[in-house]
Structures are given as structure tokens and as C-alpha cells.
């Protein structure tokens, strides 16, 4: 709550370029950081040599990425002349005097074939040491992707954690009576439409390799699960059995999915091959079992069940078939998603009339409520386990919000005149 930084204006010059991209969806997500961590790492990002040749540039996006993480603070580079270009040019004393613990410098150079060579170095001003140095040869259309990669390298070197600026997110956008599944960069830029429907779409789930998305569509007057390739747009039915078909979740090896089917009566969890064959029931209860989610090692499944009278989170050991109840506090705990670090899970809990995202640790059973909205739902964890993306409501409209898994950094992503919901964070791009 201590800070309220609007970076929308900062990003505006780049938005114009984004609009020229093919198949770009209209509703661009805008990001606001609404709360920051207690301590931030001061870093100076010096515009690269020749960068002004290209209107989009690179360093602006790198700075926006790092600021958005809530862990960095940008230090002014103005007045240090000549501007350093290589690590050797950085006079650490000058930068330490400005409070910068790290400095990023670099250069850009056009090659004969129209591509651009982008070089950068990250310098630790405390030790006067070069921490990282990379060269990329890219087309101008790849500048945003290159900026995200540079931000990932800086983030990794300075925090010891994997960066997720190069990842993508999927979400459902509702405009009037039209529903669209969008895929965008993690900062909300370049949204592209995957599917458009006049009937509701929900529950997008990324294949572990990032090439396909499973989702539920009501276009056939009932819930049916589809899998669609992002590169070709080709889609196939995963599950269209008698009754309802919903809640797809991929196994970590990408070969199978867990789905909720009602073909045998009641909402029950099945495993099914990714080509739609071999549906096999894995749980039996008299009540509701749904919202399956695989543990990162693939050995267990989290799911929601009302077998104890109220909806609670349970864990199924796939080898022993043992089922263990994990949540006990409150009468409504749903939508569990395992954190990729294997340490716990996020979920939605109801407290009074409010729905909030919380995180629970397997070892300590400790629960921390991370959000404070009225109707927070559909949590999805970043691949480095540091951030939780979720759907919230603001002024009667659906927005996306993100909170760090320690609850300290908060941000909002909203699009004008559009309800956005059902976020799903994509895997690391390797």
C-alpha cells in the first residue's frame, strides 16, 4: 500500500507499435502496480547505444518488467556523460553515489540483413564486477521478446530466482455477449485471439510445453473440453461424453489430462489421454469431485470435493490411491493449484460473504490469505512460484490481478469495456 505507481503512461509509446501486430486483439490489458515490497533493489538501466534509431527500443521494456516485479527500483541515469556502453565504461563510484547497486548498459547495431545485434552487460557496482553479458541477433519485431529475455537474465542474476517476463498468459475476455480466449505476453501486451464464441468459454489450461491449450466451451449447449494448437489453430475434442465435461488439467509430462465428467452420474474425476482416448475414472465418491490439479512431480492430484459435507481441498496419491483432506478452516475451500516449487498450493476460500485467494504450506499447514477483494477467484501460479495471477472484480467488471506469494506486491491488469477472467499462467519458454 505504500506506493502507487502508474506505469501506463510510461508504456504508452510502445502501445502504438503493438497495435500494428497481426491478429492483435483489441482489448489491451493495462497494468497498475498497487502495492510494493518493503525493500527494492536500486538499478540503473542506461539506454543502449543507438537505441533511439528504433521507436520501440528495448530498455524501456526491461525497466517496466523489473519495476512490475515489485523487487526493483529504477535509478536515474541522466547526467552521467558520456553514457557507458560496455561494462568497462561503468564507473562504479558514480553509480554508487546515486544509490544504484547495479547498472545495465548495452548497444544496438544494424546488420546487413536487416537484423539487429543487441548486446548488454549487467554490472554490480558494489564489487565492480560484470555479472552477466549477452549478445542477441534479432529482427526488430522480436525487440519485446528480447527485452523480456534481458529482464529475465537480470532478475535471475540479482534475485537468484527464475525470471518469468518471457512467459505468456491466457485468459477469457468477455465483451457484450462475445467470449474470447486470449494469449498475451506476461505484461499483458500483444493479446492474440485463440477462439471466439457467442457462448461462454472457461477453464483454459496450458500444456506443459506451451504449444496447446485445453479449455471448456459451452457452444454445443453443454460443457465440452477442447484442445487447441496455438501455432496452427487446429483443435480437437478432448471430452464430449453424455452429460457435462469440464475442469481440464494437464499431467506434467503432457500425455494425459484429468477432467471432470458426469457420464457415470455425479461430477467425478477421470484421467484421459491427450488424444481423447482411454477415459478412466480414478476416484469414487457420492458427492462432487472436481477441479483436479497435478502436483509438479505428477505423483498426486489436488481436487475439490464435498464428500465431507462442504467443499474442501483433498489430495489423491496416484500410486496408493490414498486420499487426504488438506483444508479444515472454513466451509468453502476450492480451486486448488499446486505451486511449481512443490511446497504447497493456492486456493480460494470463502470468509463470510467474501472470496479470497490464500496459500497453504504442506509442511506447516499454515494458511496465508493473500488478497482482500470481494470476489477473487481462479488463482494461477507463475512458473517460478513467486506470483499468483487471479480474477477479481472492480466496479462491477472482471479484472485480472496478481499478488506475490508472500502477499507483499500487488498489481492489477484491466482492459477497457471488457470483462477479463479465468487467467492461466503459461510455462517457461525454453
Amino acid at each position, binding site marked *: 500500500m505504500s506506493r502507487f505507481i502508474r506505469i501506463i503512461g510510461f508504456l504508452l509509446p510502445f502501445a502504438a507499435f503493438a497495435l500494428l501486430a497481426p491478429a492483435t486483439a483489441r482489448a489491451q490489458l493495462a497494468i497498475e502496480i498497487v502495492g510494493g515490497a518493503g525493500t527494492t533493489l536500486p538499478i540503473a538501466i542506461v539506454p543502449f547505444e543507438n537505441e533511439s534509431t528504433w521507436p520501440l527500443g528495448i530498455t524501456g521494456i526491461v525497466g517496466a518488467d523489473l519495476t512490475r516485479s515489485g523487487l526493483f527500483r529504477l535509478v536515474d541515469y541522466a547526467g552521467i556523460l558520456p553514457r557507458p556502453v560496455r561494462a568497462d565504461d561503468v564507473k562504479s563510484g558514480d553509480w554508487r553515489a546515486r544509490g544504484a547497486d547495479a547498472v545495465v548498459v548495452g548497444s544496438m547495431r544494424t546488420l546487413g540483413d536487416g537484423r539487429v545485434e543487441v548486446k548488454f552487460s549487467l554490472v554490480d557496482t558494489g564489487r565492480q564486477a560484470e555479472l552477466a553479458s549477452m549478445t542477441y541477433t534479432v529482427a526488430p519485431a522480436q525487440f519485446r521478446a528480447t527485452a523480456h529475455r534481458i529482464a529475465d537474465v537480470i532478475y535471475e542474476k540479482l534475485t537468484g530466482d527464475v525470471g518469468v517476463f518471457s512467459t505468456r498468459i491466457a485468459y477469457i475476455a468477455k465483451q457484450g455477449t462475445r467470449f474470447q480466449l486470449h494469449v498475451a505476453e506476461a505484461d499483458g501486451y500483444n493479446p*492474440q485471439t485463440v477462439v471466439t464464441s457467442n457462448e461462454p468459454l472457461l477453464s483454459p489450461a496450458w500444456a506443459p510445453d506451451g504449444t496447446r491449450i485445453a479449455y471448456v466451451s459451452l457452444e454445443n449447449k453443454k460443457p465440452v473440453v477442447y484442445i487447441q494448437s496455438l501455432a496452427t489453430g487446429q483443435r480437437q475434442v478432448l471430452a464430449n461424453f453424455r452429460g457435462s465435461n469440464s475442469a481440464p488439467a494437464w499431467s506434467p509430462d503432457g500425455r494425459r489430462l484429468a477432467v471432470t465428467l458426469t457420464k457415470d452420474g455425479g461430477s467425478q474425476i477421470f484421467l484421459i489421454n491427450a488424444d481423447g482416448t482411454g477415459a478412466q475414472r480414478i476416484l469414487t465418491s457420492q458427492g462432487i469431485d472436481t477441479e483436479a490439479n497435478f502436483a509438479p512431480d505428477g505423483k498426486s492430484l489436488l481436487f475439490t470435493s464435498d464428500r465431507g459435507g462442504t467443499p474442501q481441498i483433498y489430495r489423491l496419491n496416484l500410486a496408493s490411491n490414498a486420499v487426504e483432506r488438506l483444508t479444515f478452516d472454513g466451509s468453502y475451500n476450492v480451486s486448488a493449484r499446486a505451486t511449481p516449487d512443490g511446497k504447497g498450493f493456492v486456493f*480460494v476460500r470463502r470468509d463470510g460473504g467474501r472470496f479470497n485467494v490464500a496459500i497453504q504450506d504442506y509442511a506447516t499447514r499454515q494458511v496465508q490469505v493473500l488478497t482482500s477483494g470481494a470476489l477473487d477467484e481462479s488463482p494461477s501460479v507463475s512458473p517460478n512460484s513467486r506470483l499468483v495471477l487471479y480474477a477479481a472484480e472492480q466496479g462491477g467488471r472482471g479484472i485480472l490481478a496478481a499478488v506475490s506469494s508472500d502477499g507483499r506486491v500487488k498489481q492489477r491488469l484491466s482492459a477497457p469495456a471488457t470483462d477479463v477472467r479465468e487467467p492461466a499462467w503459461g510455462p517457461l519458454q525454453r
Partner: protein
Amino acid sequence: MRKWIIAALVATLVVGCKSTETQAPAQIDEPAATVASVGGTGGTGGAGGTSTSGIQTTPVSGTANGLSPALKDPRNILSKRIVYFDYDSFAVKDEFRPVVEAHARYLQANKAARVALQGHADERGSREYNIALGQKRADAVKKLMQLLGAPDMQVETVSFGKEKPKAEGHDESAWAQNRRVEITYVGE
């Protein structure tokens, strides 16, 4: 009956030839869903396979689909199609038993008729869990229909969860209208 089918066929043919001049019962709808490719690979446009052609014809009601006009007659109880539920409840209330009973009898008497019971939930809580709650309500109505003699094969239960609210408000009066099961006949 056969006469009606022929009349419907003729009507469809006429419409097919002169669709610009007549108030057509057959129409070309927008495709229910359009898929697209994403990213630098592949093309930018609809390489993908929609499961339907996007062209749908609408049968003339009460004729070719074999459904009785009584289903649409406002004076007939069969025109009543919605069963409402209390909060967090799956019990079919006594006031809706006559409606469920009438449809069960109709299904028993008309073996070709098929219904889809569409369960719905109010807007509170998880989308997927609400799909399961709506399913439980649709299953409750089906169970009652079966007790009253409707054959299992003629009744499919599905759920829309909170995705298709009847009332858009955010208070109990809207929620009460959204906790429901809709009885729909296949071919309507």
C-alpha cells in the same frame, strides 16, 4: 404427420431458392465458435477446424422434430420449463413437482422425445465448482423424473454453472432466479 413433414421440406426448399425474399425459418447463423492460430508460426487466419460448418437450419417447431405443440402452449403445464432451488440446495421443492411430473409423463408417452436438463448456479464462488453444483441440481430433477417413470435414455443432464445467468443483478432476488434447472427438448 407425413403431410407436415412434406410441408416443412417444401418450405425449406422454397426458402433455399428465395431466401432473400421470404421470412425464412431456415437461416445462416454465425459459426458458434471461431478458432485462430497464435504466434509467429502458422498463418494468421482460420487454419483451424471448427467442428460445425457454421450453417444451421432450424426445423419448423411442432412438425419435423415430432414434438407436440402442447410443449409451447402457454395454457399447458408442459410450457413451464424452469425449476428453482434454494441457496445451497438440490431438493426439488413441492411447488415444482407437478411440472416435473408432467414432463416425465410426456417422455413416457413420447419415446422419441429427448430432454436436456440444464442446471445453473448463482454467481458466487468458483466457476468449475458451480458447474458441479448445477449438475447436481439437474441430476436431482432427473432422479425425480425417473421415479415418475421417465426412461433414463431420454434424459441428459448437463450444467452451465454460473455462466448463463437469467437475471444479471448481484443480490438475492437475482441469485434466486439463477439457481435453476431448465427443461429443454432436443430439436426445439
